[in-house]
């Protein structure tokens, strides 16, 4: 037994506020930056089975299920799993931690962390577990906030001497978790330098087969402009 606080990063107490603000199409970053590329890479892997680690209310599982992929979603936040099941009664969803996956070795052809690694407490364990449940030649697909972006922490936007808005780096090399609050959501996100993620993935013997820092595709112009001002998300594909 452990003494893990089920609300360690605020997601449990923020779950209803998150569900209220998240449309089925996803928020801007999901709908206009990541979704199309994530689906394209996931389908390109030709995987028939997918595990979504930190699946939340199951949006990406539902998207991939529509493409005929057998999806399983796992998340430690019970209300998200309840929501996932009510939106997709035939889908497979369960409550559990990324650091202790309840699956056999080699059960999946594709494992996904879609904007969840920055919420996960121990990424070394989580990545080791993801690789364990992947079959040989399996694909690990990751979308995450860029380390440039997360290093900013709670500094936010500042106005430079040039009179323009900037989103400066914070203490980039310092791994840390900060609390963020917006629209009734109060959660803790990790900042880790890119090197921390790369080292953890390389340590598991994975091979990088795709990397991108995608720009928005479509969407409202003012939002596109805002996201164009700073690198926001990155996408990585690794093969076992």
């Amino acid at each position: 037994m452990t003494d893990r606080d089920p609300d360690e990063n605020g997601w449990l107490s923020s779950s209803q506020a998150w569900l209220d603000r998240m449309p089925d199409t996803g928020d801007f970053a999901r709908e206009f930056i990541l979704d199309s590329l994530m689906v394209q890479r996931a389908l390109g892997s030709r995987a028939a089975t997918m595990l979504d680690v930190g699946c939340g209310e199951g949006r990406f599982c539902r998207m991939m299920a529509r493409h005929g992929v057998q999806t399983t979603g796992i998340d430690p936040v019970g209300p998200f799993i309840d929501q996932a099941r009510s939106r997709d009664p035939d889908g497979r969803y369960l409550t559990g931690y990324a650091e202790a996956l309840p699956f056999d070795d080699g059960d999946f052809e594709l494992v996904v962390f879609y904007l969840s690694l920055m919420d996960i407490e121990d990424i070394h364990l989580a990545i080791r577990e993801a690789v364990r449940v992947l079959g040989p030649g399996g694909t690990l697909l990751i979308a995450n906030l860029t380390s440039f972006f997360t290093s900013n922490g709670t500094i936010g936007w500042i106005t430079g001497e040039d009179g323009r808005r900037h989103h400066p780096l914070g203490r980039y090399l310092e791994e840390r978790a900060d609390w963020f609050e917006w629209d009734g959501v109060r959660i803790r996100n990790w900042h880790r330098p890119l090197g921390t993620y790369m080292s953890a993935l390389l340590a598991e013997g994975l091979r990088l087969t795709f990397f991108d820092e995608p720009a928005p595709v479509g969407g409202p112009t003012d939002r596109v402009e805002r996201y164009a001002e700073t690198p926001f998300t990155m996408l990585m594909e690794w093969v076992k």
Partner: protein
Amino acid sequence: MDEDNHDVDPKLLEILVCPLSKGPLRYDSKARELISERARLAYPIREGVPILLIDEARELEDGE
């Protein structure tokens, strides 16, 4: 209560193992628990959702 909606997907049960020991889980349909003999833990199933959190598991008693 809609019992069907609260049944756990048998195909999901087939692929689940104990998150602690990685050993097999036995479904106790009466108690609605997943039993890990190796870890001596019983994981609850609530409204058809397996809760595979070690902190939420019940420790098995002797002879159980």
